[in-house]
């Protein structure tokens, strides 16, 4: 019964590894999209279909497209690939990699001891999300919108056309 979630989780892991190790920037972004999509599948299987849809729309569909857009503007070529390969020598990643393997082993060892969340899966729909966003966490939402407004004003200030002084 756990085949589908495990498959999606595995895809997420492989995708995330490829994001880090890919020398070509656009390929790395594509792997990140795969990671996000499989993560959305995991969310959907846990009953959070609304969150899954939002993850695809916002992260995979909008933010990652902007990443590709920026990469296209930068026009990275062969020199960038060579530099990325240079950075990915075993000397650089073998230490952290070993430590991560130890941590993963610990997690796998401890996994069976974790208690099962008694199998109950609650679907969380848009209404629940909306109620908690604009009920319990309304202050957070307002603060986040302040932050966005500040970003907007900054972008407008930087991007304005300078008028010629008379």
């Amino acid at each position: 019964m756990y085949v589908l979630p495990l498959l999606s989780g595995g895809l997420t892991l492989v995708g995330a590894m490829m994001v880090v190790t890919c020398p070509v920037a656009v390929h790395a972004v594509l792997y990140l999209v795969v990671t996000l999509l499989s993560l959305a599948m995991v969310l959907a299987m846990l009953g959070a279909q609304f969150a899954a849809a939002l993850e695809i729309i916002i992260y995979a569909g909008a933010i990652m497209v902007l990443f590709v857009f920026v990469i296209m503007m930068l026009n990275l070529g062969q020199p960038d690939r060579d530099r990325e390969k240079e950075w990915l020598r075993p000397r650089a990643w073998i230490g952290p990699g070993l430590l991560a393997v130890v941590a993963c082993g610990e997690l796998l060892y401890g996994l069976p001891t974790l208690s099962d969340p008694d199998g109950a899966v609650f679907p969380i729909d848009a209404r629940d999300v909306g109620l908690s966003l604009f009920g319990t966490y309304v202050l957070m939402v307002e603060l986040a919108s302040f932050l966005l407004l500040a970003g907007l004003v900054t972008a407008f200030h930087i991007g304005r056309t300078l008028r010629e002084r008379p």
Partner: protein
Amino acid sequence: MTPLPLAPIVLTPLVVLALATVLTWVERRLLGLWQDRYGPNRVGPGGMFQAVADGIKLLFKQDWVPPFADRGVFVLAPAIGMMTVLLSFAVIPLAAGGIAGGLNVGLLFILAMMGLGVYAVVLAGWASDSKYALLGGMRAAAQMISYEVFMALSLLGVVMVAGSFSLRDIVAAQSGLWFIIPQGLGFVVFLLAGIAETHRLPFDLPEGENELGAGFHTEYSGMKFGMFFIAEYAGIVLVSALATTLYLGGGNGLLLPAPVWFALKTGVIVAFFILLRAGLPRPRYDQLMGLGWKVLLPLSLLNVLATGTVMMLRAS
């Protein structure tokens, strides 16, 4: 676990592809009619088999990948375009119920697929590694990201009135009054955003053949170009079917059975799309973006505000 509805899963893509292929001929005939010329009229009765002839020609053309292109992404891009459009049809509640017409986040699923569809155009532009294609891809990225915002905002009104993201519930909520009446503003914004999302004339700046060669698919040939071509027409059918579902009451109608009504309404909107192509010139890029952010965004926000106000007044 419910058994998979195999027949719709197999049939829907086939029907959509056949429709999209026939639509290429229908469009050229209608354009001919509206622009006072013949259009294709040689192959078969009334030129009906022109689409088949075009398909055979595309299949037998040399399938050429430019040596300077990024091969993997170059091949992947048209496939992404086709897949996202076909997947979207899974949640359209046709009369038979569709494949997953009752999915409780159906509308969001379609928006997600449209969001992913941007990759087809953008990656095609990037992987081709030529200037025209790159320019087309960049235009597409900015245009489609922007218009996705207005499309989602215009749909919000429908979701508010229907109280559900499920397309089946939205159709059921229109049994009394089609949403085009209370949500007329949203309908207009949705149609404009739909044209920009499928990058059709007059908003086909990512292709813009007079300025960019053919834009993002300049380097594509053979059936890979054909995939882009068919995916674009399938996209038109998708947006029209979506407009029918959301604003024109889906299969609701008098006397005739639901599938006939659905097909009729969708056909009218498709014809309207073609009429726009026949009648309107292409705007400049800054005009396109200006229309989006300065007109459509405030309009769709106003629509949400008005809908919310009316709903609150009704409730109290």
